[in-house]
């Protein structure tokens, strides 16, 4: 019994936090926002710490639920990202009425992701996925008075429902041909007959929607732009990260027999995603839209690593997502601060940002360098390992395309840096207050960006946890 509890520890802790919040909301209706935020961030920090202790491996509920070192690590990465986003959102949440509801919704999505990561069965996978995306629609609409926010929520729920439909269609066909939903059994029964291929394409399209790979990306920019910054960063980092983790494990376990087929599909998706994401990112004027397209391009790179289908591939994808958490949240942290205090989100608003807020400009620059993959920031190592994993297949055309795309991406990331450091602004932004929580969060991101690259021990650790293909 004890063992079973420890196995499900991450899910149980998150559930407990959700219940604490619900009860608290009923029992003490008039808690001050500051008190609530302190409490919640404290709980999230405990949640993050607990991720490192008493970890077990095993299965539960008749093979429905599985956990091992790698899955625990993935959950820890998500916990970390959750904590960082929560710390960054304090300024914005202080002015909101529904703090508890916000966190209940956010934590349930996290719970859904945990179940999704631990799923060993397509049914559990699907339920986890839904649990992790439906509350996000409500969260995207959290700026209740803004039309754009409602539009974002609407677009999100539509695309999410559509992709879920595709996934379900694919899953049902897979079930029809094999008679099972269990990952291990599916891997044995899949023989690549046309119906299974068809269902695989549907599943891949479903995944494509969730990770916003081109050509399934059309919802991304509008949703990112309309949602509150905290939700946008959650969507682009945590949601995407979790689904990438699951996608890697589903492709590498369930669809292992079809590896020849899906290699070419991933190849095509990766190339399209990188190129389109990059080309659109160049033209953006809104910083959140800009990061939306840049995150699309980043997904293209991750797909390259994933196409490697090896132990390196798993490790490099997880490693990159970890680095992506730090670099993207570094950038979003600055945007969150600026947006909460001044309401400005356009790139032009950041002209001369360096003069009034040198530290924030530096944080943003490092994050963007990391996203662009310039050594010695962690982002470079992440991308390098992805390329190495992809190059393991011997396809150097793909690697060359990726390198060319890194040059394009460099251009637009440097554009932001240029705007912040070198352009004059008649109405410069005032000096912003950085309160304690966002400060901690930004410092953590910076430490991550600088240190993770140099100490590649972490990669070795992830590599040792990953199973060979």
């Amino acid at each position, binding site marked *: 019994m004890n063992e079973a509890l420890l196995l499900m520890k991450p899910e149980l802790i998150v559930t407990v936090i959700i219940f604490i919040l619900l009860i608290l909301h009923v029992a003490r209706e008039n808690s001050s926002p500051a008190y609530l935020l302190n409490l919640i961030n404290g709980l999230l920090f405990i949640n993050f710490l607990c991720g490192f202790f008493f970890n077990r491996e095993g299965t539960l509920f008749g093979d429905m639920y599985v956990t091992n070192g790698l899955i625990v690590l993935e959950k820890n990465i998500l916990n970390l990202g959750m904590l960082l986003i929560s710390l960054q959102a304090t300024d914005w949440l202080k002015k909101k009425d529904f703090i508890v509801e916000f966190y209940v919704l956010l934590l349930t999505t996290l719970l859904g992701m945990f179940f999704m990561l631990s799923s060993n069965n397509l049914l559990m996978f699907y339920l986890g996925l839904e649990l992790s995306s439906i509350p996000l629609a409500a969260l995207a609409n959290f700026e209740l008075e803004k039309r754009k926010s409602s539009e974002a929520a609407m677009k999100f729920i539509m695309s999410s429902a559509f992709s879920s439909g595709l996934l379900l269609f694919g899953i049902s066909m897979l079930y029809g041909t094999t008679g099972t939903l269990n990952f291990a059994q599916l891997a044995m029964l899949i023989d690549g007959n046309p119906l299974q291929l068809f269902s695989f394409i549907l599943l891949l399209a479903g995944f494509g929607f969730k990770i916003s790979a081109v050509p399934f990306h059309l919802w991304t920019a509008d949703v990112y732009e309309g949602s509150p910054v905290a939700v946008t960063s959650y969507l682009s980092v945590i949601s995407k990260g979790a689904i990438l983790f699951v996608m890697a494990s589903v492709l590498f376990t369930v669809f292992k027999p079809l590896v020849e087929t899906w290699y070419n599909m991933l190849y095509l998706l990766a190339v399209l995603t990188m190129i389109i994401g990059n080309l659109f990112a160049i033209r953006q004027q809104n910083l959140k839209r800009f990061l939306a397209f840049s995150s699309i391009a980043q997904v293209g790179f991750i797909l390259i690593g994933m196409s490697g289908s090896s132990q*390196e591939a798993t*490790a490099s994808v997880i490693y990159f997502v970890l680095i992506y958490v730090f670099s993207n949240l570094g950038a979003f942290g600055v945007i969150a601060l600026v947006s909460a205090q001044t309401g400005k989100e356009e790139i032009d608003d950041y002209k001369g940002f360096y003069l009034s807020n040198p530290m924030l400009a530096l944080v943003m620059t490092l994050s963007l*360098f990391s996203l662009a993959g*310039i*050594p*010695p920031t962690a982002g*470079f*190592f992440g991308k*390098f*390992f992805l*390329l*190495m994993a992809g*190059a*393991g297949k*011997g396809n*150097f055309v793909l*690697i*060359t395309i990726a*390198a*060319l795309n*890194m*040059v394009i991406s*460099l*251009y637009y990331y*440097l554009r932001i840096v*240029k705007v912040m*450091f*070198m*352009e004059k602004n008649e109405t410069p932004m005032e000096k912003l207050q950085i309160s304690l929580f966002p400060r901690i969060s930004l410092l953590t991101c910076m430490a991550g960006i600088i240190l993770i690259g140099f100490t*590649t021990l972490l*990669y*070795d650790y992830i*590599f040792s946890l990953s199973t060979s293909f």
Partner: protein
Amino acid sequence: MIAITLLLLPVIFAIILLLAPAASSRRIALIGSIISFSITAFAYSQYLQEDFTKLNFDVSWASAFGIRFNIGMDGISLILVLLTALLYPVIIASTSRTVISNPKAFYSLMMLMQLGLMGVFMAKDAFLFYVFYELTLIPVYFICAVWGGDRSIPITLKFFIYTLAGSLLMLIAIIYLYFKTPGSHTFDIQAFYQLTLTPVEQGWIFWAFFLAFAVKIPIFPFHSWQPDTYTVSPMAGTMLLAGLMLKMGIYGLIRFILPIVPLGLEDWVDFAMVLCIIGIVYASLIAWQQQDLKRLIAYSSIAHVGLIAAGVLAANTAGLQGAIIQMFNHGINVVALFFMIDIIENRYGTRWMDELGGIAGQMKKLGVLFMIVMLGSIGLPLTNGFVGEFLLLMGMYVFNPWAAAFAGLTLILGAVYMFRLYRNVFLGEVKDHKMTTSDVAGWEGFILIPLCAIVIVIGIFPSILLNVSEQPVQQLLQFMNDHKSGVSGL
């Protein structure tokens, strides 16, 4: 131990700079660079005593991909590390004439740059080489863009994108080579030397490397970023670029192209050589037309490094030895020239040739010092430039007499445009009589006189450098020839 100290020192000083008050930034940076220089001098003495143990450092870094933090110095590296360590105090001292906004950031970036340069010259692991190669880009970008003149932003952006695009090709080539290494793969450059690649592969890899380095060197037609960048950058940035950063490209040619893809080189060397020679003549002719002193030196620099690159591509002992010693000489000469142009600009408020004249009458010491460095730069016998250019031309003559003949034009044209500069700026009538000017100040002389001394000493005793690089050059050529016969034996 020495090697890792040389890498750690800039980092430590960068951190000290960020913490220390801004007023003392320059002094701290100067102290740091002088300590680096003395350690390098010690390394040089160790090398002469053939005690190599302290010059190497090797630990595992990312074991999953067999990446090692493997640094060390052979003769070629040592000369370039020495050049870096020698020029750094000069470059930092040269900034004292101008007021620098936000000095903490400026000097920290300078230190970071030093780390990158040292790392490139010492790396024995291809991945490490790449990381350091790119690392130099960030500081120099910020130095040139933030502290540069008008239009510096778009120009440095072009520079950044150009060089990064080039080096990404190199990254692909390195990854390719990595997967070619036998057993559990490795990024060790020595292991790359052992590979036997087919001529087709060699051709591709040659181009990937060549483009990366050609942008950095820069070889015609990839040079278009260079004169603009030199012109708009602050003087320290220009010195860094011309004196040190170009050398990374040539060093890369020597380290990667010759021993790894000799057949690729053989197939394409004529083409590459023609590019180099076009660059030499073209840049010399343009330098002839320049009115802006800084731009003139920038173009002359393209001509000189074009010759060095051509010598490397000739791939024989004379050419390589000449290239290595000339890299050192070019670093010294070009930094000294920029330093003196900075003095002129500082005293007269302009660096346009037609606004200047008769400086030698007003600043006698400067006139003499400039003459010495200029003679070194155009390669007069008994100056450092002569040794280098003579060896280079000899190497090219062995390769192809016609190539040597055309490349030899650089000597004549170099003399023409440099003497034109000297005649217009230092001789003739004084253009602006109202200007009261002081001659070379004490601390400026303290920097310039040693540089001029080096120009002459190396001209007379080139063996102090040639001996150091002799053995590694022979080894490199040995590798190359073994490799060639190995592949053709297949």
